[in-house]
């Protein structure tokens, strides 16, 4: 009974996602083409990757406001590096992007875990710091398409069997995260810390390690996303991914991740990401002005958080009733 209620959230999301697709498909059959779905998936791949990292951070009742700035800083660093040293092989650049993301995430993680500063403060601070360094490094200029080699620009675009590298990486990320969070010891420890921090310490979980780990991973994955971002849009600017952190958090919230920590599933987050992605894509398909995008996203988030809260309450009541029996 209890399991059914918990499972219901993803079910509701899936049903509304499918009905959304059907409704849009009725108005514009082109929306349902395979090519269009590939577009939607490509457009949401970056969001899905970064959302996985954010998901983990929110699972331990934290929040990472610096991911957008992290994406921008990594993207700008590797773009500048590529511009001035075009000889560096692409795979080294890939590794470097992950390394830079790792350093940025580790900085957050050390401040949160070792120095015990609230995550929201640390990442609000590093949001300003990272974003500031993007402008300092670039001197306010852009790295634009003609300053990037074809190999660099084709990194996210190329692919095999009709699946782009970008989508492939995103799917790989989702699978790894899904397995990691559900089936590994560390993954379960992350849920435990979010569920009850004090209790998790009593059962011998290394709180500092877990807290550092989630920020480090969130940073590394934003780093990789940063490289793919600038390569995909073939430009690195100081306002790259501005405000992206809020879209990422919104995707997690729509996916049913609780801000109180300890609750949420990988599947839910993926559905949340797709929900926002489809809304963005569908508007242009059914001839609605793209200016509706932001408002509709807000509405979706609002409905999602209200449903989440009502369902959480119902689950709690159910637990209390069970105890009484």
């Amino acid at each position, binding site marked *: 009974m209890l399991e059914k209620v918990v499972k219901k959230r993803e079910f509701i999301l899936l049903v509304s996602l499918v009905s959304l697709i059907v409704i849009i498909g009725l108005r514009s059959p082109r929306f349902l083409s395979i090519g269009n779905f590939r577009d939607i998936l490509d457009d949401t791949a970056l969001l899905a990757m970064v959302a996985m990292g954010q998901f983990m951070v929110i699972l331990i009742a934290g*929040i990472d*406001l610096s991911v957008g700035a992290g994406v921008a800083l990594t993207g700008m660093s590797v773009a500048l590096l590529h511009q001035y040293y075009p000889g560096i092989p692409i795979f080294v650049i890939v590794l470097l992007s992950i390394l830079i993301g790792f350093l940025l995430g580790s900085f957050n993680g050390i*401040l949160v875990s070792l*120095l*015990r*500063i*609230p995550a*929201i*403060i*640390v990442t*609000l*601070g*590093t*949001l*300003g*710091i990272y*974003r*500031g*360094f*993007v*402008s*300092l490094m670039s001197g*306010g200029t852009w790295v634009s398409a003609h300053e990037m080699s074809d190999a660099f620009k084709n990194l996210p675009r190329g692919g095999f069997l009709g699946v782009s590298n970008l989508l492939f990486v995103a799917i790989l990320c989702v699978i790894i995260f899904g397995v990691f969070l559900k089936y590994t010891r560390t993954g379960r420890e992350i849920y435990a810390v979010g569920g009850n921090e004090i209790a998790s310490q009593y059962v011998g979980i290394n709180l500092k390690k877990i807290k550092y780990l989630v920020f480090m991973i969130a940073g590394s994955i934003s780093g990789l996303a940063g490289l793919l971002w600038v390569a995909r849009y073939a430009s690195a600017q*100081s306002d790259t991914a*501005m*405000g992206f952190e*809020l879209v990422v*958090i*919104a995707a997690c*919230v729509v996916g049913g991740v609780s*801000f*109180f920590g300890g609750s949420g599933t990988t599947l839910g987050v993926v559905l949340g990401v797709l929900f926002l992605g489809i809304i963005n894509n569908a508007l242009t398909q059914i001839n609605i*002005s793209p*200016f*509706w*995008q*932001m*408002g*509709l*996203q*807000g*509405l979706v*988030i*609002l409905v999602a*958080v*209200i449903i*989440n*809260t*009502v369902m959480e*309450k119902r689950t709690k009541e159910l637990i209390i009733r069970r105890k009484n029996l």
Partner: protein
Amino acid sequence: MKSTEKMPIWRILMQWEAILFFMFVTMIVVDSKLSPYFLDLNNMLRTTFNFMEKAIIVLPMMFIIICGDIDISVAGIIALSSCFMGLASQHLGVGTPALISIGLLTGLSAGVLNGLIITKIGVPAIAVTLAGLFLFRGIAYVILGDMAVTTYPKSFAYLGQGYIGNTRIPFELVLFIILAIIFGIVLHKTTYGRKLFAIGNNSTAARFFGINVNRIRFLNFALIGLFSGLASVLLTSRIGSTRPNIATGWELEIITITVLGGVYIFGGAGNILGVVISIFMVGLARFGMGLINVPGVVMNIAMGFLLIIAILLPGSLRQLQSKILAKQQQR
């Protein structure tokens, strides 16, 4: 006995404010050394225009955060209020008093909506206001699209650009000072203020004490909505135009200033003095850096580090203090 009891509490309360004030003075001294134009009173007064709208939202944000809540929809509310004022001015040609009422009412309604969903349904404030951030600005985008409204009556400009009488004192600055005094009194001298601290420290315990927790939280959100509307009136009047992307990203800056002022992000602590110093320190630092041609982004980096240090320093000072105390007791 009394004095020994009072000392540590006074110390803990004053610590961050004292550090902040010290930094504020240092900044003024350094800036005035670097640029001869910094200490010019007229310049200083004029630069307050640039941060008074933010400052006015920082005041109710202080209440919200002390209560353990947060509101990240404030910039969205500014955009929505400004949008409705723009519509009324362009299509109905209404006068300044009507524009002000529209701005304030829009803000209040948005705040009331936030407050109702937070307190009646019990959704966490951060989730509701995250939705609000998208929703309110989203409505402004739906209505205005890529258009801008620039037709405002002449008298409307006074609010954001005017000075008091023949002096060089901006109207916005005076308005802020009056509001800051009122907020200070309410926070530190009334039961409402005490209730805010009680809720922020332990909302369950506060409820058992007979405090209507949800009513106060609701009032806070209505209040910050109203003040976002007020900030929108001032900002729209100052720049004389409305675009849907007005005040983008202000929410994080407003929260940063509040926390930098010593308000504890998880609630239960904070005071008006620190917040006011923080507002002027951040505002004048930006002004000073602008004078010596330091790009604004360096300021963002400095503010980021300052924010982290702001949390780190009082905590480690307290730890040091308790270590010294423990040593003394051992002897």
